[in-house]
């Protein structure tokens, strides 16, 4: 049987004969959807602007990114938003959906919309808005640099491969925080960033914590100095919004707590200022 490419929910196969298998549950799920259309309010503008309302057909397994893409392709090509991989790897499609920061490619409409099919899409909080749903990420990544969120090898190449047993406490701590995709959801969710624009933020501090636990890295002292200070890890109030919203299930709050502990002991031993 030839393989057909298309979207059954959109009616691409309406002319085709009923399929032999898989259709009944699929059709039942489609019928079970509470709304046939979605009412989508989308932020238009930059720092100032207004919400524009679109009506989008409800489809099976529809993601928030599908909704935005459909609006941009079928209704308003001037809508600005950002995405790349569509599979939760690149971290570029995050937005605020019904008040919660989310990665939109992996968020289904059924998770985010109410039973009335209402959606409100806004750009990430705590970022400068470029246009509509696209935000300027420069400050966010500058803070990764400011937190020494990059690996610093020794001046001379290692004689052999570093052996890092996975079961060591340092490697375990790094593993727990290493999967960050830089989507900015935690930064958008953080109240401390909203209060203090200089605060390094959960993502940069989480990255620094992975490197503090990297036995091959040679800049531990410099990194701890970078994440201390008036805009560093000690500003964290442990609200845990970053941990609550992180789509990758990382707990930046614990990473920040680790940095606080490291600095605490360093200060107790007379190091740091």
């Amino acid at each position, binding site marked *: 049987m030839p393989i057909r490419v298309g979207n059954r929910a959109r009616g691409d196969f309406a002319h085709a004969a009923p399929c032999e298998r898989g259709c009944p549950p699929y059709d039942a799920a489609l019928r079970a959807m509470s709304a046939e259309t979605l009412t989508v309010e989308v932020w238009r503008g930059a720092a100032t602007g207004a919400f524009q309302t679109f009506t989008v057909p409800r489809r099976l397994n529809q993601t928030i990114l599908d909704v935005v893409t459909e609006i941009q392709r079928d209704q308003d090509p001037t809508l600005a938003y950002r995405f790349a991989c569509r599979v939760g790897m690149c971290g570029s499609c995050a937005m605020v959906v019904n008040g919660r920061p989310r990665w939109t490619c992996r968020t289904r409409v059924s998770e985010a919309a109410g039973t009335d099919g209402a959606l409100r899409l806004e750009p990430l909080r705590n970022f400068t808005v470029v246009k509509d749903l696209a935000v300027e990420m420069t400050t966010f990544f500058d803070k990764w640099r400011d937190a020494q969120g990059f690996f610093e090898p020794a001046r001379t190449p290692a004689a052999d491969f570093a052996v890092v047993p996975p079961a060591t406490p340092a490697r375990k701590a790094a593993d727990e925080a290493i999967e960050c995709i830089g989507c900015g959801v935690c930064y958008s969710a953080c109240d*401390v960033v909203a*209060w*203090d624009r200089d605060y390094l933020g959960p993502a940069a501090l989480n990255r620094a914590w992975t490197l503090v636990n990297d036995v091959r890295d040679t800049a531990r002292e410099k990194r701890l100095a970078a994440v*201390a*200070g*008036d805009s*560093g890890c*000690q*500003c964290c109030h442990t609200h845990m919004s970053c941990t609550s919203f992180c789509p990758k299930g990382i707990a930046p709050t614990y990473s920040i707590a680790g940095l*606080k502990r490291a*600095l*605490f002991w*360093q*200060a*107790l031993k007379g190091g*740091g*200022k």
Partner: protein
Amino acid sequence: MTPVLFLAQRLSAAVLALAVAGHLVTILYAIRGGLTAGDILARTHGNLAFFAFYSVFVVAVAFHAPIGLRNVIREWTPWRGGSLDAALAVFAVMLLVLGFRAVFAVYAA
């Protein structure tokens, strides 16, 4: 907040957790039988244990409160820099002076 301020705030918080609990328990215990202020002052007068306990309390407060206030001011106002630190150093000294004045008042009154 620098690591040293963070350390001072956390250590003073640990001291205050015990000091506040001791303070509250003492108050509840003291007034339980209907003691008057005069009765209480008669017991605290010349009591070195009382003096030492509340001296530690005052010193911990003088460290803890200005550091916390500095964080609050930095988060909620644009005030930064040396003038903020100087103002809070004055606040710390004021807490020390007023606190020890009260301690001496009930220890040696």
